[in-house]
């Protein structure tokens, strides 16, 4: 609780959180006005998909930077070294810091999307389950990319390094991962399709997209070819859950293992 309290006070008094929240609010209000002309039922799904597509580009890079700078500031301000010489180990510090950071970033976004339901009710026929899928994807993306940000902050020794690594990671998940998979696509057979599926669903961007679109009923998994059946060897919800766990654990472990203290190594 001590870390959450500290992180909250720091966040509400600095611009980062408010600016990010303001952008999310503006984007979601603009999407609302754009989709309101499509009718009460169809417009609702158009809004959810448009909102997802817009936030998909914005949330990862934002969370990467917020997570990384928050950890790096602890090095710059020498608070990290003061904490490590007392009760904390690198593991406990990063654990408490991650929990605090995730809470402080997710709670305001969650509150906004709860309030957002009010205007939605006026314009559309709201399906709460479908809205829940959207919220889950947003929170999932925030969790994964904030934790990756913590890894970057823990490893980096300068702000330039943070900027470089964050942009590379963002670029990788948005473009390079798909390019790599496309290049092996002609060689996919029934024997290796599960391996391809694992590689495909390692990308959180693709996993959340599949989770949301299948949740909204855009995709149907009723009549699949045998190859596609082997590709979808788990349900989208399970792929989403495992992807979340995989990246959270991997980036946290990486942050502990590759942690570099400032100035004396």
């Amino acid at each position, binding site marked *: 609780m*001590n870390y959450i309290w500290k992180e909250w006070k*720091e966040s509400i*008094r600095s611009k980062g959180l408010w600016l990010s929240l303001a952008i999310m609010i503006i984007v979601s209000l603009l999407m609302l006005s754009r989709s309101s002309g499509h009718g009460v039922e169809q417009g609702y799904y158009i809004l959810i998909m448009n909102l997802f597509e817009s936030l998909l580009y914005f949330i990862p890079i934002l969370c990467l930077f917020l997570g990384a700078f928050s950890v790096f500031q602890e090095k710059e*301000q020498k608070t990290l*070294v*003061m904490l*490590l*010489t*007392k009760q904390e180990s690198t593991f406990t510090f990063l654990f408490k810091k991650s929990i605090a950071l995730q809470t402080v970033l997710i709670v305001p976004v969650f509150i906004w999307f709860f309030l957002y339901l009010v205007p939605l009710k006026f314009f559309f026929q709201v399906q709460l389950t479908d809205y829940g899928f959207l919220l889950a994807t947003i929170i999932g993306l925030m969790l994964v990319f904030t934790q990756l940000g913590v890894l970057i902050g823990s490893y980096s020794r300068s702000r330039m390094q943070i900027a470089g690594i964050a942009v590379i990671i963002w670029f990788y998940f948005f473009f390079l991962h798909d390019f790599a998979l496309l290049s092996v696509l002609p060689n996919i057979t029934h024997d290796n399709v599960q391996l391809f599926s694992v590689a495909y669903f390692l990308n959180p961007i693709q996993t959340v997209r599949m989770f949301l679109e299948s949740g909204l009923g855009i995709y149907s998994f009723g009549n699949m070819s045998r190859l596609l059946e082997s590709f979808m060897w788990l349900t989208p919800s399970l792929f989403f859950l495992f992807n979340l766990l995989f990246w959270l654990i991997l980036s946290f472990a990486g942050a502990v293992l590759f942690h570099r203290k400032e100035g004396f190594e």
Partner: protein
Amino acid sequence: MIEVTGLTQSFGKKNVLDDVSLTIEQKEVCALVGRNGAGKSTFINSLLGLLPIKTGKILIKGTEQRKSKNEIAYLPEKFMLYPTLTGYENMVFFAKAATGHAEETKMKEILTAVRLWDDKDIPIKGYSKGMLQRLGLAVTLYQDSDIIILDEPTSGIDPMGRKEILEILKGLKNKTILLSSHHLDEIKQLCTHVAYLDGGKITKYPVQQFIKLKHLGGMNT
């Protein structure tokens, strides 16, 4: 109280600390002196357990350094704490992080002692360098450790601010203090001993003997 035996720390092929041994007794105030790059930070970081010890042994109050983490309070050089939090909020956070709870009466006592009680509700980005240093000392003192390590506690502070810091440090009784410093007047006022670090080796002197040697030109600090 602090017993370092045969400590060697190297970066690449260079031995920054070469078979260093040093004992600091209880209630001693010892200055750690040496030129820039002599290995003062490496020595302090080894004492604090921030650097792994490859060769040698460090005993803090008779127990191995890695098991005695809470015995030492440390104030680094050029720290900033959390600029958007007030002085009081910084104290509360560090008190809870170090001891698990924050006692209001104790915090009031310490903040009054460092003359920051009246400014406790100002975000510390509005503090002067001297005020920030005093707050850092307050955070360190709250931890009630017998051993205090201070890295250049008056670095970059104006003469008035330095005087205030020195007054607070002089008032610390029953504490074992190791402070790194480049200021001879500060060492003269505060310290009982000087650990002089040069060429990877440490030699310990009573403060008067060190000052004599320094005046004879035998010490580069």
